[in-house]
């Protein structure tokens, strides 16, 4: 049996967890899911549809929101009881963090951001390094494989299976396990209420935008396409846009249907965060910009002219 950690925010599932479930199904074992927090029980239908037969729900008074060390403890309790062959999660900041707590509790290795897993003795993985530019082939010497999945490399596919059976349990938390937890949150959502991870369309700007004022045109285009604005690292480190909008290895990794990169040259760490987008359109004055290698379509030109012209052409096309 393989356990897959399903990450959720107050029962709102992280879509990357569905990709992780899809990848786990290919390993030829029964799949059971784990959700941390009693509100995770609401995910029984969706994890069932993506192939989990059971959904273990860790419920405890001390788990009121994301509590990473408690997640590690709850996973350890399940490992001790059910002896899975592997525990997997999405290779998101949360997935990596919670499984690292599990691996630390058990003092066994963990392989992060795996694109391929072959179970065995030892287990064999391919994992992403250097912002996805290198693939490491590695052996994992441990009976239980703890690994996170390079989740954007797999599309979520429904298994068309039924609702998972919910099995609620109370993890044996130590007091130290729940010291660090989310105490409160501020919503940082964009005007349209869209976040980078959810958006189907992202209009992203880089150094070429020239300053904070230049983003007005990008916002207008993003609104028109029902999307949101993103940016590169230089933009946030110059203080032109908030850090929450940064796309890349050091920001948010995204894979929207349409990614428009305007005035972004394509540093390795930016590419790592957007290269899995379905369609990539580049607007750049430099025909040699590295980002062009990842683009499906490109316009060689000044974004300050092209974007307003594009916005008005789309308005016309929409009538």
């Amino acid at each position, binding site marked *: 049996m393989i356990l897959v950690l399903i990450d959720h925010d107050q029962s709102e599932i992280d879509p990357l967890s569905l990709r992780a479930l899809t990848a786990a199904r290919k390993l030829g074992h029964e799949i059971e899911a784990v959700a941390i927090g009693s509100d995770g029980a609401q995910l029984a239908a969706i994890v069932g549809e993506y192939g989990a037969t059971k959904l273990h729900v860790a419920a405890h008074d001390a788990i009121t929101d*994301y509590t*990473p060390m408690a997640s590690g403890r709850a996973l350890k309790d399940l490992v001790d009881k059910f002896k899975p062959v592997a525990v997997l999660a999405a290779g998101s900041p949360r997935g*990596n*963090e919670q499984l*690292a*707590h599990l*691996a*630390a*509790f058990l003092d066994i*290795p*963990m392989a*992060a951001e795996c694109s391929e897993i072959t179970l065995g003795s030892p287990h064999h993985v391919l994992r*992403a*390094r*250097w*912002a996805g*530019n*290198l*693939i*490491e*082939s*590695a*052996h994992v*010497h441990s009976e239980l494989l703890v690994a*996170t999945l390079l989740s954007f490399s797999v599309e979520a596919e429904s298994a068309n299976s039924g609702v998972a059976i919910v099995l609620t349990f109370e993890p044996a938390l130590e007091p*130290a396990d729940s*010291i*660090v937890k*989310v*105490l*409160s*949150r*501020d*919503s940082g959502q964009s005007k349209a209420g869209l976040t980078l991870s*959810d958006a189907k*369309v992202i209009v992203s700007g880089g150094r070429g935008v020239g300053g904070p004022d230049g983003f007005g045109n990008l916002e207008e285009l993003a609104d028109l*396409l029902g999307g949101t604005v993103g940016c590169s690292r230089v933009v946030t480190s110059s203080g032109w846009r908030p*850090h*929450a909008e*940064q796309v890349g290895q*050091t920001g948010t990794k995204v894979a929207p*249907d*349409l990614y428009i990169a305007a005035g972004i040259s394509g540093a*390795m*760490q930016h590419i790592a965060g957007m290269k899995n987008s379905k*369609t990539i*359109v580049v607007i750049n004055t430099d025909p040699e910009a*590295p980002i062009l*290698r990842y*683009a499906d*379509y*490109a*316009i*060689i*030109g000044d974004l300050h*002219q*092209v974007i307003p012209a*594009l916005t008005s*052409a*789309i308005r016309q096309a929409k009538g």
Partner: protein
Amino acid sequence: MDILVCLKRVPLAGGTLILTPDSRDIETKHLGFGISPHEENAVEAGVQLVEQMGGTLTLLTLGPSDAEEQLRSQLAIGATRAVLIETDGQEWDPQGTAAALVDAINSEETKFDLIIFGAESADSAGYQIHIRVAHALNRPIVTNVKAMKVENGVVSCERVVATGREHYEAPMPAIVTVRDGLNIPRYPSVPGRMQARKKIVDMKKAEPRVPKLEKVTLALAPSKDKGAEILGKGVDAVPALVEVLKQIGAL
């Protein structure tokens, strides 16, 4: 307050990576070295806290003896002293690295109030050493911190997630990992560089352990030039792009 920042020497690869003939490492003959981006923010945070509250800032790294170069350049920013755990030059796996860091931290006379790591290393991205260290030292850990404040023995932290900002607190002694954006790392001043030459770098040795996460080989990720269709130049290409957007269903 006494602070420890953990660093890692990494090659400064530009746009292209080249592997060694045995495909086990990056060819670094023609590369300079630095530290991972988030770690520059970690050192800056440590320097700022010591400026505000007094105390000491110690740097710790595990790596080849050449990593002294990275320690000296960060000592120039304002750290007090540094410790280098010298390896054989081979890459250690996360468990081995964490164990050696823990031994070094435990052998220090100073009991650090706060230990700061960068959120991830540029090269190996294993996402676990900081958590293993926290478990071994029995300390609370907050990761991926983008804003931080120390008050009354508590470090309060903000983490940026897709839906906004999350707030965490941890009683000290604690561990945090920080991300790019936490602050703007300063450049070393000339007097800072002069002083750094005289600061103490303690050299330690540690025995490598048999790796449990054992690297076999590295390969370059298939670099698929998607062969972008150039729609044209400037505003003249806009109608062609509108057609593309219609085809892919974006309009």
